[in-house]
């Protein structure tokens, strides 16, 4: 039988990095995710798997260490929260431009600025539309449970390496700090240098081998013709990812008359909210995007044919709701509900919002 653990989301993610055979973690403390680095340091992964863990002097340094390690075909990960993620924006754009697979985790707290350390979902735009400059995308995974905090490490790296593109876990203070049962992934071996060479030697910098073309990692192409072609290449890749990797979960959607679209903690809270709504005789379904990019546009379009109205529930002033509206394209009303600035909406509040914003309006 699999051993069941009770862990915080942050700890589960940390343990999963070791078990996923990740090669390196680079990070800098910030609430509410400091447990990731603390857990790793306590576990001495250099003894368990040889994984390198380093507390960098800043988030800027951490993400650029990830750049260096990822460019070597190694699995590298970093985690932070709002202010730290903002500091990583330039390097994230570089990583996307240079097509490096890696994993970046944001355990979101309330902004703007130093804000508060309480949970929030107000970094959606930053993760999904691009906090950095230029036309790039991240594969954005939104865990809604401690189990997914653990599972998305492997999933994130799989997708990242499959498409040679950075993956991003957009979590929040609720999912990071809560404990739940979690079945930890089995221990994968870290790839040996020889395996890395075999798998990624055609692009990663492992040292120029005789009789093999050398590898260069860069996001620069001074000639705009070449840069444009590179950008088209990226866009083609993004289209491919959109086609293949859009993930979502439908809850009670079969006979729903109204729909909530919500991810992460808000999806969990909304589940309770729809049971409350059901008690009041209202059938509300939930569509939970698991990938925020690529966004489950088609699934929502499909649902828009069935329901009378859609409520985007997120702990922000209204960010994901734009993608819901873009999907629905005017077919049915789309409203937004959410508390923010570190406040968490309760199931009752969400249930009430469905009535106020969709039903009785």
């Amino acid at each position: 039988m699999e051993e069941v653990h009770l862990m915080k989301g942050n700890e589960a993610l940390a343990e999963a990095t070791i078990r996923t055979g990740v090669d390196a973690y680079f990070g800098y403390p910030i609430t509410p995710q400091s447990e990731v680095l603390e857990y790793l340091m306590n576990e001495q992964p250099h003894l368990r798997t040889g994984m390198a863990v380093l507390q960098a002097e800043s988030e800027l340094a951490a993400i650029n260490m990830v750049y260096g390690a990822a460019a070597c075909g190694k699995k590298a990960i970093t985690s932070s929260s709002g202010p730290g993620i903002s500091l990583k924006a330039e390097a994230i754009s570089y990583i996307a431009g240079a097509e490096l697979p890696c994993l970046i985790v944001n355990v979101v707290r309330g902004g703007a600025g130093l804000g508060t350390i309480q949970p929030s979902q107000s970094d959606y735009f930053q993760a999904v539309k691009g906090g950095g400059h230029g036309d790039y995308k991240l594969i954005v995974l939104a865990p809604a449970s401690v189990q997914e905090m653990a599972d998305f490490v492997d999933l994130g790296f799989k997708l990242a390496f499959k498409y040679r593109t950075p993956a991003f876990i957009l979590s929040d203070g609720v999912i990071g700090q809560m404990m739940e049962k979690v079945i930890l992934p089995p221990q994968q071996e870290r790839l040996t240098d020889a395996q890395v060479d075999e798998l990624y030697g055609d692009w990663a910098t492992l040292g120029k081998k005789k009789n093999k073309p050398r590898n260069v990692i860069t996001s620069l192409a001074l000639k705009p013709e070449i840069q444009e072609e590179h950008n088209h290449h990226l866009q083609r890749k993004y289209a491919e990812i959109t086609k293949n990797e859009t993930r979502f979960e439908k809850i009670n959607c079969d006979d729903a008359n109204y729909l909530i679209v919500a991810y992460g903690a808000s999806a969990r809270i909304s589940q309770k909210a729809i049971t409350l709504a059901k008690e009041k005789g209202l059938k509300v379904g939930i569509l939970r995007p698991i990938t925020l990019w690529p966004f489950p546009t088609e699934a929502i379009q499909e649902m828009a044919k069935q329901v009378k109205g859609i409520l985007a529930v997120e702990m922000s002033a209204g960010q994901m709701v734009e993608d819901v509206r873009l999907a629905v394209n005017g077919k049915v009303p789309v409203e937004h509900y959410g508390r923010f600035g570190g406040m968490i909406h309760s199931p009752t509040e969400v249930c009430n919002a469905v009535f106020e914003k969709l039903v009785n309006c």
Partner: protein
Amino acid sequence: MEQSTISPEEIIKTGTVAFKPTKAMIDTNMSYCPGCGHGVAHRLVMEVVEEMGIIEDTIGIAPVGCSVLAYDFMDIDMQQAAHGRAPAVATGIKRVFPNKHVFTYQGDGDLAAIGTSETIHACNRGENIVIIFVNNGIYGMTGGQLAPTTLPNMKTSTSPYGRDVDMTGQPLKITEMVALLPGVAFVTRQAVHKPGLVRKTKKAIKKAFKIAEEKKGLAFIEIVSNCNSGWKMRPDASNIWLEENMLPFYPLGDIKG
């Protein structure tokens, strides 16, 4: 055979090669301005890598600066780092490949302005890497702006009346600063505008790679160089100016180790 009659043509045919470009440099036109010191510095690093037989295990890091395209000239695996972050990138590589040779090649804007923090902390951690720091007292790439290392009263495009040290401070001797750090095993300041200095610099670079290889700590090599375009001088004149103005302020020689 009378010695005096041998012609240059014959020497070329029958003589020994006293110098030829290292194969570790790609035979292409480098993007540098005529007479720019970057070319010599590139060559020396690559000669050392070739002579040490470590091409297969070396990863170089190009900065943002005129040497951003170093990877188009150095025939090894390379990464291009964000402006100032080369030491962090190098750390990332070295931590996953502790036995590879990793070096950064950085300008003074890159290393001593925007990258100060990454420089100092990589040095302090004693990452077993080599930092090649080309100090030309100016931002060459972007058109000759003030660098932290610009000399007092020196004219640049953002100090058109000369560097005003009251406003912008004295030139930063970051090399002397990192020499203080226990993680740094070897610090030296060299130059490449004269044949003898070029030879010394190469020796220093070789020593640096050896030190990093032996995991003794970080090896830091400043190369005081010209930027004739930025300084708005002819290359030969720029080297004289370098000798007369840069070197008194940035004296050559080993600082540590």
